[in-house]
């Protein structure tokens, strides 16, 4: 009898998620994972045959399992207690989802294949080092891919024939600053990648020695321990290296006001959920130049209906603290300042460029911050119509050593999102404002042949 009750009880327990799944209110976005959760797939004959329907159901159940977030938290505790944790001892965490694809070309001989895999393992193996509650990305770029980035930059420099200065301000990875001797080689290896960028720049493109400047401050907090970004201080030293290259006088840090955000547990913590990192959250100190600014955010495809924005968004906190800079990533942000020197700049960036861009407001009247990952605006058009003086490529090294992202930056010359011609309307006619938030279909479906970029520019 006892066994019978056990079985019925167990059946009840394993049946309950089935009812809870379809009776409880659904969450559509996971804040901690920063992604949309799976939606219930539609059943069609073709979706069933292809297996995409059943796959979708699996994903839906995975994403909407009752008490999922709490269970994930418990799992991190279980993982942490599978043995003794040695305090202050370094650990290498392997995160499979961070791993790149190691497929090598078929025609490699054995020795080249081994070399290829060694290089790959250095760059993309998905290893993170945890040391004293801080996480470091354990790779160092790729001197082999870096020249492709330099060529892209140099092609842009040639396109503007010296009328516009082109700067390369590539940030190293946090691996360059691991405070343990046996990982010191990563600093040199980051340098190799950045040197490869410098050595291959031509047509007057200018290199900012960001790593050289950061290396002058080895004992300062240059990168966050729980996030892959640099700190406001790290970005400031990059800004100094830019000022040196551009011939500007850098604004002293002491002349800026500063604020704090605490606690900050960023992207690397999200990936690892490591307890030692959770117990050692970052403090985000950020510095604000004393310049009046007006910022506007544009959608990916056009210049219609910008939203009001800020250079420093004070309301971000917790895991999103880094979004304080420029209110996070956007396809295009236009910053107008009260600086009066007639200079205008375009910053081509990924998220590393956010913390860097905020210091530029002291040197330019207008700054267009373009995120190459999201923007569909035409870079050439933007530069020509706005009489831009400087283009600054301010990005993390991942973006500069990846053919996919380099192609995205190349594509900016061909994007169809052009600025409308300025038409003076009669005073009596009120212009209709069309909020064009949905991109025209031809932009989405359009395929641009990036291989022809060099030919076009040349």
């Amino acid at each position, binding site marked *: 009898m006892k066994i019978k009750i056990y079985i019925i009880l167990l059946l009840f327990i394993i049946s309950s998620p089935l009812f809870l799944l379809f009776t409880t209110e659904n969450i559509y976005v996971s804040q901690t994972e920063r992604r949309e959760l799976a939606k219930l797939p539609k059943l069609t004959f073709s979706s069933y045959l*292809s297996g995409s329907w059943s796959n979708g159901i699996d994903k839906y159940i995975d994403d909407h399992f009752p008490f999922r977030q709490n269970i994930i938290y418990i*799992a991190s505790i279980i993982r942490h207690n599978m043995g*003794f*944790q040695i305090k202050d001892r370094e650990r290498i965490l392997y995160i*499979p989802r961070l791993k790149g694809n190691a497929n090598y070309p078929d025609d490699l001989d054995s020795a080249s294949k081994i070399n290829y895999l060694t290089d790959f*393992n250095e760059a993309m193996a998905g290893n993170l080092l945890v040391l004293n509650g801080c996480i470091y990305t354990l790779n160092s770029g790729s001197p082999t891919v870096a020249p492709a980035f330099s060529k892209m930059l140099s092609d842009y420099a040639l396109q503007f024939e010296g009328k516009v200065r082109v700067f390369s301000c590539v940030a190293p990875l946090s691996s360059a600053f691991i405070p343990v001797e046996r990982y010191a080689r990563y600093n040199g290896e980051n340098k190799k990648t950045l040197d490869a960028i410098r050595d291959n720049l031509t047509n007057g493109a200018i290199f900012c020695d960001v790593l050289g400047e950061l290396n002058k401050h080895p004992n300062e907090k240059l990168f966050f321990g729980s996030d892959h970004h640099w700190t406001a201080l790290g970005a400031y030293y990059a800004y100094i290296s830019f000022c040196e290259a551009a011939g500007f006088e850098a604004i002293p840090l002491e002349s800026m006001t500063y604020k704090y955000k605490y606690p900050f547990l960023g992207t690397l913590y999200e990936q690892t959920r490591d307890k030692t990192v959770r117990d050692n959250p970052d403090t985000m100190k950020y510095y604000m130049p004393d310049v009046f600014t007006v910022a506007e955010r544009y959608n990916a495809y056009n210049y219609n209906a910008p939203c009001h924005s800020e250079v420093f968004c004070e309301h971000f906190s917790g895991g999103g603290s880094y979004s304080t800079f420029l209110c996070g990533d956007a396809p295009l942000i236009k910053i107008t300042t009260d600086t009066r020197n007639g200079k205008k700049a375009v910053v081509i960036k990924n998220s590393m460029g956010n913390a860097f861009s905020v210091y530029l407001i002291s040197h330019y009247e207008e700054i267009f911050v373009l995120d190459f990952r999201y923007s569909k605006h035409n870079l050439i058009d933007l530069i020509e119509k706005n009489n831009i003086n400087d283009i600054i490529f301010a990005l993390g090294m991942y973006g500069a050593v990846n053919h996919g992202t380099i192609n995205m930056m190349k594509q900016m010359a061909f994007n169809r999102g052009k600025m409308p011609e300025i038409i003076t309307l009669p005073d009596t006619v009120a212009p209709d404002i069309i909020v064009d938030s949905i991109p025209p279909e031809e932009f989405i479906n359009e395929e641009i042949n990036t291989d022809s970029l060099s030919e076009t520019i040349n």
Partner: protein
Amino acid sequence: MFFTTDKIIFYLLQITNYCTFVRLFSKDMVFSSLSFLYIFLPIVLILYFSCPGKLIKNLILTVFSYIFYAWGEPMWIILLIFSSLFDYFNGILIYKWRGHIFSKVMVIVSIVGNLSLLLAFKYGGFIWENINFFVELPFPKPENTLPIGISFYTFQTISYTIDVYRKIVKPQYNIINFLMFVSLFTQLVAGPIVRYKTITREIENRKINWDDIWSGVSRFSIGMFKKVLIANTAGMLVEKYLDAQYFNLSIPEAWFGITMFSVQLYFDFSGYSDMAIGLGRVFGFHFDENFKHPYAATSVADFYRRWHISLGRFFRDYVYIPLGGNRRKQDRNIMIVWLLTGLWHGASWNFVLWGGYFGCFMIIEKYSKSILDKTPLAIKHLYTIILIIFSRAIFYFVDFDKLRAFIGILFTSKKPINPAFYSDLSAHSFLFILVIILCIPWNEILAKDSKIWIVSTKFYNSYSFAINILLLALSTIMLVDATYNPFIYFRF
């Protein structure tokens, strides 16, 4: 002629391409998934136990087995049904023409038919590669066309027709019962290979026994725990050491990585077998054991009496003994069986090498029996474990260049030990202790009337509900944890 060779090749390639396309989207259903444990299983259990009559119960199991199979492989269900019907009729005809030459012809048709399926779908790409190495073939390599479970269900149906031919069993005339035997989801995807004779009676006549169901539940929970907690955790370490840090390994780290792969392989495979045996018992079937503490073996031969027993028995009964067994050309027979066993595990030369490796040691052990008998047990155990762990390298690295490089690392690496290695050892120490405890054959060491055995059995029986809930809860937590997938944007 209407069907020219070119046209046939063209249409075959079209089918292959479609299957490859389907494969891109499909994700097989496995026991260790939330969809199976919390959606599929409760529905099957409720329907199964609420319906009367063996035939209806068998029909429910058949229908749900097809749903289970079609979850990831909607297209390949045609192959499963074809294979089942093919041998359903073969079995009837073999029995009908028993004693006649036609009976022999039909059993040959069955074997050739099943092996052709395996050759076409499992070994097609492999055969293409090897022929193309010598002569350039006029069509591209067939890719990714391996239907799941094909290695298991084709062997099950081969064993059925041969056993009917040998008059060990009578054919199954009821088509639903036969379809259920071939497609039963409990062992369809990952075995064990269930012989028809094992469950002949239970297919038609089995009783619901609550104690049996509960013991099945317990076995399933243990299997799930072994797979999700132990095998998956070991798997993470395997990926980390044998993949992500591959070229920076010191000798101890390399051995640790390959040892973890041995742990992963055993707990994954035996965990699946436990779940299959447990589920079978819940539905009233009693499958044979597939693993008997293999890492406690004291010789290679002993190891394979304890590891994947259903496969070993299949090759013993249908290949080794017909070839002559111990009576005639035993060494040749051993080598053939082991090369085939290797090939069964995968369509790649490293598996053949792996089979040959064990074949050689089986033969060496045969000739050095007198020395082995005199060797202390601990030394024999150590020798076996080292050979087995080393063999896992051959199993893991499909690429021969990587395998050669890794063997070099195993013995000659000059790299220093990364201090993070010690952190991994200590951070998983409880898990390693658990692995050792679970690898020890307590049922062989302890006498059934010993105090420890009696006390532990009593404890388990008293708290079986709590233990099962705990094991399932821990497994669920880790399964949910595996769904955690934060958006990775910083790669770009």
